């Protein structure tokens, strides 16, 4: 930088002029004075500079100012970027970043250091926005904000669909067109918002929060039509990304065209390539739903029908087996068996009593014949007791048999010949009631006969008898 130090400063005397005899002419400067003059010289002498270099030792102070060093292989330059300028930077200053810095040289007087006061930084070889995008993407990805398991499902049939976009844009028009075609009775809530320009990201975030709190809104489409990267920039801002991630309602991002990818797309629960596509994603066509339910209903009915048919088959197989075939015949046979048993029982009981009585008589006869005097009384008593017991036992056995018989007879009543009497028939006996008279020839006039009726009997005298077959 020639010229700067060659030119004599107006108010500075030549310090090297040793020959000057007058000491009073010597001007002694303070450190501050000279520093101030250096500073003035630097600031006015260099003006605005563009400097290319790599960032190192970068530190953000809590004042918001950023200090760093710009370096190349052989030299270093201290630099500062004040908060007021740094605020407008889209990307973050990082060590190792190759940049072009715009600024002015100045002196930090307390330390006597010269430094570059940086007003603007640009990444070298690529756009600042591109870099900012990559930086934020890396950061949020590291935080897990893009993780697949954070994505919530979009409801199949949303109650209300929230839309956050510009009222003037093509996006809204496209979305509404598709929605009304696919699901004519959808309920839509639109929250108009500015989608580009300074502060747009914050506005969109605010709109998202507002629409998420509308009762019934269970999915939100946020987006805009196509544009330059600057136009779409709001959707790459960290504040909006975080709002989308924290949104209590699933969010579908729909920004620009298919090729435009924004940070919002990564954090959203679903990314739609275009606003129209978002509308198609958010509602399955109503007709498709009807068809789906119809198919399920059809399958339900088919399943029920086949279930019933299966049971019918099983029943058919069971009833056609020997076990159940002709069950009614078997029931009838069982009835006959019961009546046979009853007869048998009656006969057996009578025989038992008779046998016991005979045994008893035989024993009594034997006892008497032996003429046992000693203990005769006791034996007699035992005998009497045995006799009583026998009677009791036999009686009980008979009673039980009789009770069972009565019960069975009651059931078999309809089969009993006596039941016929109730219908008006009568039975004619010989007088001593030992035989039933079946032919007229069995009696002669003057014989006495007995007639059993349904209720009671009558004694009769035969006046005449007529053979039926003679």
């Amino acid at each position: 930088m020639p010229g700067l130090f060659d030119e004599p400063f107006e108010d500075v005397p030549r310090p090297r002029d040793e020959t000057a005899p007058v000491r009073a002419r010597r001007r002694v400067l303070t450190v501050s004075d000279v520093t101030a003059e250096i500073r003035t010289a630097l600031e006015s002498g260099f003006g605005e500079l563009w400097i290319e270099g790599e960032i190192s030792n970068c530190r953000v102070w809590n004042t918001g100012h950023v200090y760093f060093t710009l370096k190349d292989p052989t030299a270093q330059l201290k630099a500062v970027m004040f908060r007021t300028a740094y605020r407008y930077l889209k990307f973050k200053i990082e060590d190792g970043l190759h940049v072009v810095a715009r600024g002015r040289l100045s002196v930090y007087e307390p330390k006597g250091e010269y430094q570059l006061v940086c007003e603007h930084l640009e990444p070298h070889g690529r756009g600042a926005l591109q870099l900012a995008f990559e930086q934020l993407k890396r950061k949020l990805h590291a935080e897990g904000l893009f993780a697949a398991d954070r994505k919530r499902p979009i409801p199949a049939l949303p109650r209300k669909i929230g839309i956050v976009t510009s009222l003037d844009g093509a996006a809204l028009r496209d979305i509404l067109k598709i929605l009304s075609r696919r699901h004519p009775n959808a309920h839509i809530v639109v929250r108009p918002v500015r989608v580009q320009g300074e502060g747009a990201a914050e506005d969109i975030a605010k709109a998202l929060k507002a629409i998420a709190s509308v009762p019934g809104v269970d999915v939100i489409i946020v987006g805009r039509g196509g544009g330059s990267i600057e136009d779409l920039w709001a959707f790459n801002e960290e504040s909006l990304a975080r709002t989308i991630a924290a949104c209590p309602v699933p969010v579908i991002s729909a920004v620009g065209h298919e090729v435009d990818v924004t940070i919002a797309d990564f954090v959203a629960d679903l990314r739609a390539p275009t606003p129209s596509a978002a509308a198609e994603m958010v509602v399955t066509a109503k007709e498709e739903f009807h068809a789906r339910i119809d198919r399920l209903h059809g399958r339900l009915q088919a399943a029920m029908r086949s279930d019933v048919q299966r049971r019918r088959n099983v029943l058919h197989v069971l009833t056609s087996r020997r076990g159940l075939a002709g069950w009614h015949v078997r029931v009838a046979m069982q009835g006959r068996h019961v009546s046979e048993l009853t007869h048998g029982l009656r006969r057996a009981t009578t025989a038992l009593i008779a046998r016991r009585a005979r045994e008893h008589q035989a024993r009594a006869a034997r006892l008497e014949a032996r003429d046992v005097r000693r203990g005769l009384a006791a034996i007699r008593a035992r005998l009497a007791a045995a006799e009583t017991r026998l009677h009791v036992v036999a009686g009980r056995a008979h009673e039980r048999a009789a009770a069972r018989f009565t019960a069975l007879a009651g059931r078999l009543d309809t089969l009993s010949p006596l039941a016929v009497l109730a219908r008006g028939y009568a039975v004619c006996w010989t007088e001593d009631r030992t035989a039933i008279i079946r032919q007229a020839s069995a009696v002669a006039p003057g014989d006495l006969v007995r007639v059993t009726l349904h209720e009671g009997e009558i004694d009769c005298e035969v006046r005449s008898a007529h053979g039926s077959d003679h």
Partner: protein
Amino acid sequence: MDPTIKDFESASAELEAIVKKMEEGDLTLEKALELYERGVQLSRFCHAKLEEAERRLEILNERGELRPAHAAMGLTPSDESGKAR
């Protein structure tokens, strides 16, 4: 409507589960009938739900007020193109 049926989503999911279960068979007659009945209810619910909502377009303004779109945007609800101004 049946209070045990929450929304379209859960109803169609339950219907699907019931159909699967019935198709697998192996149920008692009582259970099969019970499921069938429930399935019919669910499918009716779903059809009804699809027709239930009426088309509405509302604008949520800066003050948090909901306004019908045609009043807020100068659109009619039948304006298919959603004409922007």
